[in-house]
């Protein structure tokens, strides 16, 4: 029983991480109708930038600057490439980000090498908080803390700022928002950069936990997809919930049948598609 309780905690920690990644993906999907296949690679980029910056800026500096740089690069990518396909068949945006993901992965390998790299953490972060809760290191606590702060910040931003409100409005009906004189081109660019910022931040956090390698984004991309489908497309709260749910499911499965811990999240997705196709918190009609 204690084991299960341990693992529920553990699942929440993993889930929190999926949430951060999936929220960025979800933001872009909701407003721009683009599935960003390169999201995992922006994540890796954030981690690698932090690795490069740590010697000069220290861990805390890198934690702040690396996601901002990632967002900047995301902004450039959106301006140069992705905005050109907004009004085309979705096949083009998918292919574009899919191909770009390849390029980014290769660049990461070329610049930082194929070997795994560790990201140094401040010492106190890698200690467990107590002998009883040995598997909860301060770093994990810190990660969850960052995720909570960022998620609260994001929701506050979307609720109380003008840009945020416009993004939410655009998610529901972009045409109307555009006809009200809002510069949706700017809105989309900003929103894409915001998504990349979240990816970059997830990358720095992930790097501290699992280290860096050029492929690291690949394995984290699919759980984010599933978090979005399960939670319901169009709902950020849904994504939040979906991420926590699959994180928990994966952790609990590891207790009873470890080799299925990857497959279980797909099983959950199938159940959701069967019995509640719009996802737990999805709006009816959002997916069609």
């Amino acid at each position: 029983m204690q084991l299960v309780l341990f693992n529920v905690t553990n699942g929440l920690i993993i889930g929190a991480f999926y949430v951060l990644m999936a929220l960025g993906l979800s933001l872009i999907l909701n407003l721009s109708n683009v599935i960003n296949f390169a999201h995992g690679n922006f994540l890796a980029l954030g981690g690698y930038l932090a690795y490069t910056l740590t010697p000069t800026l220290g861990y805390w500096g890198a934690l702040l600057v690396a996601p901002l740089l990632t967002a900047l690069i995301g902004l450039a990518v959106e301006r140069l490439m992705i905005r050109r396909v907004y009004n085309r068949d979705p096949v083009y945006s998918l292919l574009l980000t899919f191909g770009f993901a390849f390029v980014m992965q290769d660049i990461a390998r070329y610049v930082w090498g194929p070997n795994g790299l560790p990201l140094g953490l401040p010492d106190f972060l890698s200690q467990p908080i107590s002998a009883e809760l040995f598997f909860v290191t301060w770093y994990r606590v810190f990660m969850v803390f960052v995720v909570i702060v960022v998620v609260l910040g994001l929701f506050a931003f979307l609720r109380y700022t003008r840009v945020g409100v416009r993004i939410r409005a655009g998610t529901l009906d972009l045409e109307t928002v555009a006809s009200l004189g809002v510069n949706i081109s700017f809105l989309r660019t900003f929103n894409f950069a915001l998504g990349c910022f979240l990816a970059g931040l997830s990358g720095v956090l992930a790097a501290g936990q699992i280290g860096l390698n050029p492929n690291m984004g690949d394995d984290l991309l699919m759980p984010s997809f599933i978090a979005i489908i399960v939670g319901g497309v169009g709902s950020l709260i849904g994504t939040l919930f979906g991420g926590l749910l699959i994180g928990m499911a994966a952790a609990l499965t590891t207790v009873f049948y470890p080799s299925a811990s990857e497959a279980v999240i797909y099983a959950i997705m199938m159940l959701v598609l069967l019995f509640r196709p719009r996802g737990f918190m999805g709006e009816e009609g959002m997916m069609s």
Partner: protein
Amino acid sequence: MSTDVTIAAVAAARRPAVPRWVTLVVIWALLIAAPYWLPLLGGYTALAGRVLVFGLAAMGLNLLLGFTGVLSFGHAAYFGLGAYGAGLTLRYLVHSTPLAMLAGTLLGGLAGTLFGLLIVRRRGVYFAMCTIAFGQLWYYLAYSWNDFTGGFDGLRDFHREPIGFGPLTLDISEGGTRFYFFLLAIFAVAVTLLGLLVRSPFGHTLRAIRENERRARFLAIPVERQIWLSFSISCFFTALAGTLYALLNNFADPLALHYSLSGYFVVMCVMGGMRTFWGPLLGATVFVMLQDYISSMTVNWMSFVGTIFVLVVLFFPRGLLGLRRQRGET
């Protein structure tokens, strides 16, 4: 402003620059002679086989993508299921190539048919997203079920069996030209079926849905059912290609189910021209050959392949055949 009616009208008004039978003769002549001219270009017969297999998979996908206008980014799932179906049959059930092909095609096709029911109301990127995720389900299944599928290492210990027709036996167990012609024969049958389908009334309703779903609905076309049928049929063809892939390699591995392969199929369609019948085959040819060359020359082939994707999307969205057609139209 373009239903299939107008398309037909335009097509009737304008004679194509090259008569269609000439195109067909050229395509088939090139395919039949491939084992002879390909080595001159630095290719090899196994590569020609790969082109046919991927070409068939992409053409199958294109029924959905190009002719129905529905985006599946998970067709590798049915391709891979075809491959595993054939492989598992040969390994555990019977040593018969035709039965293995049948089993693989049925496995992939039926999985697509059932899954199609679940997602036929989705459109656009959401449809794509569900197909990707469903594809990955099979990927992880094949990858984790070690005892049955061979897991990460792939399914092995099976090989193509000679096909017996009474006293006449076709021995395809050696690779090489004979096996290539076997592949080509299957390809020809499949593509002919696909061609008939596209020209049938059913095919026309698909195009009507692609051009204007609402109008199609008003014309009493059962949109959901047609999309579902199109998805299922397309899965059957891709699964058939998958069984050929298993025969080509004497192997089935989880990456044949992975979404990156789905991405390759889509780019083949787009690169060749997804509004054209033969476009995906051309796209597959160019893509497979390019990938083969580039990956021998540099470790950084991923950058090149990725750049091809980006360039196609930004500069050649109509694909190679689409380009020609566009020029002809204006």
